């Protein structure tokens, strides 16, 4: 078991954002995390990455209790993530930004540069390397942050809505990149996504969150046919084929 979330509770003041969430991610798995807005998906990521403290419960990563660790130490252990809301403001270009990720594993500039170039090549983003991140449209920036996260050489990658705002053709492209990260680079991936055509196609397992609880967990086909999931999130008229 690579990641195990056990009875996680997160309260924001009087609001219980996560209510005893438990789930597991096995090594080399690609897990989709879906649910309506406000279900607590991003909060769950924030708890796992250590960006917000948990109220109660445990997070185990690679056999180690990381519940109390600060985010940067979790990253060192091999936990990487992207952010749903992110807009670059600085003057870093794509290559330099990717190098920041690579610097987690090396202190040498030449080495970091090599890792960064290799990562950008793997993710098909090499043509962007000289572009300033802040000058790339926001959907594109998310792909860059994905590359930066991969450059940290993680064991697990948490992707928060990387396909939001993309057109169907671009979604196809991103799908290819994520599959490549998962299959060829061998990085375990957890994916928060609203784009069903993406998440249902590549996930091996899907976890559905609603109002801070896991309401269903299973293979994509099982999940889309589950009455509770249809009621809470997909809607009565949902047909997966139509989203493609």
């Amino acid at each position: 078991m690579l990641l195990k979330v056990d009875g996680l509770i997160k309260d924001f003041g009087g609001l219980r954002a996560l209510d005893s969430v438990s789930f597991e991610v096995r090594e080399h798995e690609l897990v989709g995390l879906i649910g309506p807005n406000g279900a607590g998906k991003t909060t769950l990521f924030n708890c796992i990455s250590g960006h917000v403290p948990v109220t109660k419960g445990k997070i185990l990563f690679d056999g180690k209790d990381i519940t109390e660790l600060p985010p940067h130490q979790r990253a060192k252990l091999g936990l990487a993530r992207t952010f749903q809301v992110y807009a670059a403001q600085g003057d870093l270009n794509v290559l330099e930004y990717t190098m920041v990720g690579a610097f987690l594993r090396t202190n040498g500039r030449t080495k970091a540069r090599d890792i960064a170039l290799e990562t950008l090549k793997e993710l098909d983003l090499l043509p962007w390397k000289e572009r300033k991140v802040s000058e790339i449209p926001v959907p594109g920036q998310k792909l860059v942050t994905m590359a930066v996260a991969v450059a940290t050489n993680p064991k697990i990658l948490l992707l928060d809505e990387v396909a939001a705002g993309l057109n169907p053709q671009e979604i196809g492209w991103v799908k290819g990149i994520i599959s490549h990260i998962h299959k060829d680079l061998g990085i375990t991936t957890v994916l928060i996504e609203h784009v069903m055509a993406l998440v249902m196609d590549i996930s091996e397992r899907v976890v559905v969150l609603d109002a801070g609880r896991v309401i269903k967990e299973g293979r994509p086909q099982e999940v889309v046919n589950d009455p509770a999931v249809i009621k809470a999130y997909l809607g009565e008229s949902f047909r997966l084929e139509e989203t493609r």
Partner: protein
Amino acid sequence: MEAIRNALDFKDLPRSEVYLSWAVALFLIIFPLLPFSSFAMATMIQFLIFAVYGMGWNTIGGYGGQVDLGKAQYVGIGAYTTTVALIRWDIPFWVSMPLGMAISVLWSFMIGYPLFKLKGHYFAIATIATSLVLKDLFEVWGFVGAARGLHISPVKYPPPDFLRLIFKEDVYYYYLLLGFFFLAVFVMNWFRHSALGYRLRCIKDNEEVAKALGINVHWAKIKTYALATAYVSAMGSVHAMYIKNIEPEDTMSLDISVLIALMAMLGGAGSLWGPIIGAAVLVPMKSYLKEWMGAKMGLIGIDLIIYGFIIMVIAAVEPKGLWGLYERWKGKRSAP
């Protein structure tokens, strides 16, 4: 050694910039041989000192985006350490300068730890406060001369004295400072290429992302702050030997802190040449405003008004200063 390679590597800059900086370096080297007035010489010395102060500020303030308005306290620690060490114990400059840097860095760790728990404006205000507190302490501390300050007598230490750094002619100070200036540029270039430099730029962009990338944000800021401090403290030491008369008011006042920040902000915060450009514009302007308009025309305080005005213009027009304007112009020209 990769650190040394990084310090000497300017290949990532455009050719034109490298040639221009060689030309500037050459000019700085031959400047004392040219027939300029002693006022010009004094201004150039001020330029070198403030350019290095500005470079120090630029690490944490420019690359790291942490607006620090308390750099004067380190000018003070550097200046006082060398002066007190000389007057009380006759310790030569080359020992007391590193000692001053060590004390400054130690102090920077002590206050940096709580300071960097703060963000944005709160951080800026807290840096002002620490600097002012230190100044107030020095103003009542008899051992260091209290508010009257300390004076280095040229009778007691006859020039030229290389060990104590006491000279009569400005040209000695000029070349010494020029050496420090070049060293500062190389250290800056190292920093820019180091893992820490990249991390700071990422922190400036977004701290939450930085944390997710395994960066210990708090510690990276403290380390960079210490580096900035070392720059400023070393220059403070030379500055004291040069003016030979230090008071808490001229070394640790808010004006100095603001001026140091302005050097980098006007020139271009977060760029290699920014602080140098800023100092090249501001130092002559400062001399003119203070000596001429302030003293002769009786417009005391006019310099502060102008600085305030510059800050407003930078904030409104181009946050990256003159260098930002240049890059924008270059970008427009190269665009099809």
